Every structure is written in structure tokens, then in C-alpha cells.
């Protein structure tokens, strides 16, 4: 594959001007993830809200991330996808993203569910970049689990 596909414009845009960056208050859960091989790190905060139907909704995701363009862009795209969504739907997107990224190219990603995040499909071809693309998503996954436990 071409580098132009791996580093799609949308990815470079997000990495240069990440959305929702910075750590904000208030938050219900905070997690820290590192990529032990390359030293990339992300600290992520999640604020949730109890909706009318009783389920949790993602009110805000804020973060401080250090890493390559793939990992930076990936956490940025994620915040766009999950903020305002129900936690359940956010977790569905998470699962779909993880499936795409670890499919070695077999799964092009569901654009309806993942939106811009399908631009990361190319990462699946590069096993050593998979963990970059997943760093922020893993942090969110853990934060969501924490928020669910505390809200229960």
C-alpha cells in the first residue's frame, strides 16, 4: 500500500490539529495507557451523564497524548465519534474499530458506524502500528468500564 493511503489526509489533519485535546474537568474516570515499545502515552478523562432512558451517555472525553501521528489522530477521531453518544453505542464503535484494525486488512470498517475512523483501515496492514492506533481507544475502553462500575 502507499504511504499516501496510510497517512490519509484526514489522519494528518487530526494529528496536526487534534480535536478535544487537553485535560478537562469534571470527569468520572481517568486512565493512563502507555505503549511500552515506543514510549507513547495517553492520559484520558471521561465524563458521563445519566440519560432519561437510564443509560449512560458520553458527555466529554478529554486527553493528553504523546505519540506518533497515527496514535494522535486516532484518539482525536475517537473523541468525535463517541462524545454525545450513549456509552453502549460508543462501545459498539470501539469494538468495530478494534475488529477493523486487527483484521490484517480483511475488514474495511463499517463507515456508517465509524465515519472518518475508516481512514485507519490501512493501519491493519502494518502490525507494528496497530498498537499506535489502539492506544487511545484502549484508554477509553478502560475509562468506560470504570465509569460503568462507579455509576452502578
Amino acid at each position, binding site marked *: 500500500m502507499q504511504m499516501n493511503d496510510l497517512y490519509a489526509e484526514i489522519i494528518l489533519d487530526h494529528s496536526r490539529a487534534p480535536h478535544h485535546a487537553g485535560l478537562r474537568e469534571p470527569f468520572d474516570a481517568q486512565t493512563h495507557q*502507555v505503549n*511500552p*515499545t515506543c514510549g507513547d502515552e495517553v492520559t484520558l478523562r471521561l465524563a458521563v451523564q445519566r440519560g432519561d432512558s437510564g443509560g449512560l451517555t458520553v458527555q466529554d472525553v478529554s486527553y493528553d497524548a504523546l505519540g506518533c501521528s497515527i496514535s494522535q489522530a486516532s484518539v482525536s477521531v475517537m473523541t468525535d465519534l463517541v462524545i454525545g453518544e450513549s456509552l453502549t453505542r460508543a462501545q459498539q464503535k470501539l469494538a468495530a474499530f478494534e475488529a477493523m484494525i486487527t483484521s490484517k486488512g480483511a475488514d474495511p470498517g463499517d463507515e456508517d458506524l465509524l465515519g472518518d475512523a475508516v481512514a485507519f483501515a490501512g493501519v491493519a496492514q*502494518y*502490525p*507494528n502500528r496497530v498498537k499506535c492506533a489502539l492506544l487511545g481507544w484502549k484508554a477509553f475502553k478502560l475509562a468506560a468500564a470504570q465509569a460503568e462500575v462507579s455509576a452502578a
Partner: protein
Amino acid sequence: MAVVAHDSPELGSTRVRADFPVLERTVRGGKPLVYLDSGATSQRPVCVLDAEQEFITDHYAAVKRGAHQLADEATEYYEGARAKVAAFVGARRPEEIIFTAGATASLNLVAYAFGNATGDAARFAVGPGDEIVVTEMEHHANLVPWQELCRRTGATLKWFGLTDDFRLDLSDISAVITPRTKVLALTGESNVLGTLPPVADLTAAAHRVGALVVLDACQSVPHRATDFAALDVDFAAFSGHKMLGPTGVGVLYGKYELLATLPPFLTGGSMIEVVYMDHSTYIAPPARFEAGTPPVTQAVALGAAVDYLTDLGMDHVEAHAMELTGLALQGLSALPGVSILGPSTTANRGPAVAFLVDGIHPHDVGQLLDDAGVAVRVGHHCAWPLHRRYGVSASSRATFGVYSTADEVAALVDAVAGAQKFFAGR
């Protein structure tokens, strides 16, 4: 589990033997080599050598670390080998397989990691008042590390003795395995007697008192279908070089939920999460237990050995080994003055045939056998307490591989008779 290939070549056949070039050798002035030392270390088939070589000449690089294609490929081969080994021994997931330098390293890993246990890992810790149980038939590799752990921690070592008919003495089992027992470390198969202890029963007994079970599976994995999950042992160790694979690689199997909290043993690169000058944190298994550059090419070759064994079919492999064992037991017992150090029939026993020859020291027996081209092992076979139990300091031992033949067993029996004649006649 092992898939039986119904058109697999007959074990010990010319076709199988052709895979092991060393078997064409002659020794001691032109005598054909009769290699009956596979229990010490097995020979390697050409396909295992080729798999390692192809990997090295086409795909070799540092695993887990690189940002380049070769490193990706090497990592894929390495992790592929882990998956193969996991399937071969009945692990629930590849992450339950840790590549080590060998079975001895695997057993030391467990013993030292227990010794490092504090805090979250307190369930592994042992100390004064705690008991570690072994057996009198253990290989030194599954005895000395526990002696040392007891020395370091103040725990007490206890053991199951042996009966006159070469079995574990379980008559006082409830005095040996007690609520103080923290660890039961035992062999799946004696490398001298061939005896198979009742591993599943003892594992259940140990679990009833909350103890962890560490299995030395060195002698069983090479010639019997293995399912550690079904057996329910907590940890198990075995070596590549006894199962048609290379030296320099071994395996520690561990239940994932235990590995997840077990403290590290060797520390260094690739097992850390974050490193500061004054402290470090560690990542999840299996990487936590694979510090530094692992035995990459050896693991790949071990994967190929597992494929080869699977193609032969592990039940064929076992049947073949036991057939030769039966022949050896019969043939040797029939010689006056020769006795088997171990059960004399194939019932509940594996294929290690140790024997004693009246009036001739095992080392002298081995010398005469060697002169006839028959390679056996002599000495205490790293099981000195076992030998002491039976009032001898050493024995001779024949062990068999997938390439061994009935003719070779006959050659062994002839050579033992020849040794008797030699010493009687002079």
C-alpha cells in the same frame, strides 16, 4: 490436539529415519549408530532444520520491536510458533505459552517468581510454615529449585517417597498434602523409572487444599498427546530439544489468570511497561516473562517440530514408543542377572527403560554398549535421590524416539548380553 494423519509414515520406518541424517552415522570403527538416548535429547528432523534456516535466511529480525517489514515478519513467525505450541499442549490461548531457555529455566522461573511475590501477588508467596511438596522421583530440575526456594524463604520441603514396586508412595497422602501445602511440584513421568504418577488425582488433591501444581512435563510431552487445561495443572514445563526441536528453547505453560498476577523473574527489555531510574512497571504475560531477545529462531524451529509430531500423530508416536518399551522390558528381563529399575511391564508407564546388570557397573555396561554402537545413558540421570532410594548410585538407561526400531532394541539386548559375556570371560 494432535491430528492423526492416517497416511502418516510408519514410525521407525526407513522413510521416517531418512529425516534424521545422523542415524546414518557409524561409530567406533564402522558400527551403525543405535541411538537410544532420545530421553536425554532427541535428534532433529531435516524439516525442523530447514524451517529454522528458511526463517533465518528470509525473515529474520528482532521481534516485537522493529518498525520495518522484516521485524513484522519475524514477529509473525515467532507468535505463530507460540500458537502452534499452545494448540499442541492444550493451552486455552497462546498467551499461556512462555518461551524460555529450556525446562530447567521454566521451573526456575516459577520458583523464583514465587519467591518474588508480594502485594497483589501474595497468593504465590511462600514463607515459614508453608510447605512445598515434591516427589522422590523428581529430576534435579524439579527438586533443587524448590530446595533453594525453601532456603531463601524459610518454607519447608516435603516429598512423596517411592514404593518397592517403583510407584509413588501415596499411603500417607493426607500427611503430605495438607492445608499448609502451597505448591505441589511433580513429574508427569519419571525420566528413570518410566513411572506415571496419578497427576490428575494429585492435582485435585492439591487444589482442594489451595495449593498450586507445577508439572514437569519434559518426558511426557514428546511422546504423548497433552492437554494441560484438561489436566488442570497450574504450570507445566518442557524442553524443545527432547521433542525433535532445538536446544536453547523451552516452554512454561501457565493458566492465564495465574500468569496475570505472577511477578516477573528475569528482567530487562521487552517485559517492561515504564522504566524510571528508580523503579519500573511490567507488562502483561507472556511478554512479562520473556525479558530480552527471546530464542526466536529456536521457537520457530520448535513450531516446526510440533508440526512434524502432529503429522506423525501423537497416538502413533505413543504407541510406537510403548511397543519398543515392551520389547526392551521383555528382552532385558529375560537376560539372567539383568533387572529393570522401574515397572517391568508397560502398564501405567512411559518409555524410559533403566536397568541394572549384576556385577557390572553401569558405566562399564555403557562402555561396552557404546563399543557395539549402542548409545545409552549411564549415571543417575539427574535423579540421584531416586537411585539412592533403590540402593544404587547409577543405572543404564535406554530411551526411544520416533525413529527408533525394534531391531535397535534387539541390538541393545544383544549388546547387554555381550557385555555380560565380556566381563564374565575375562
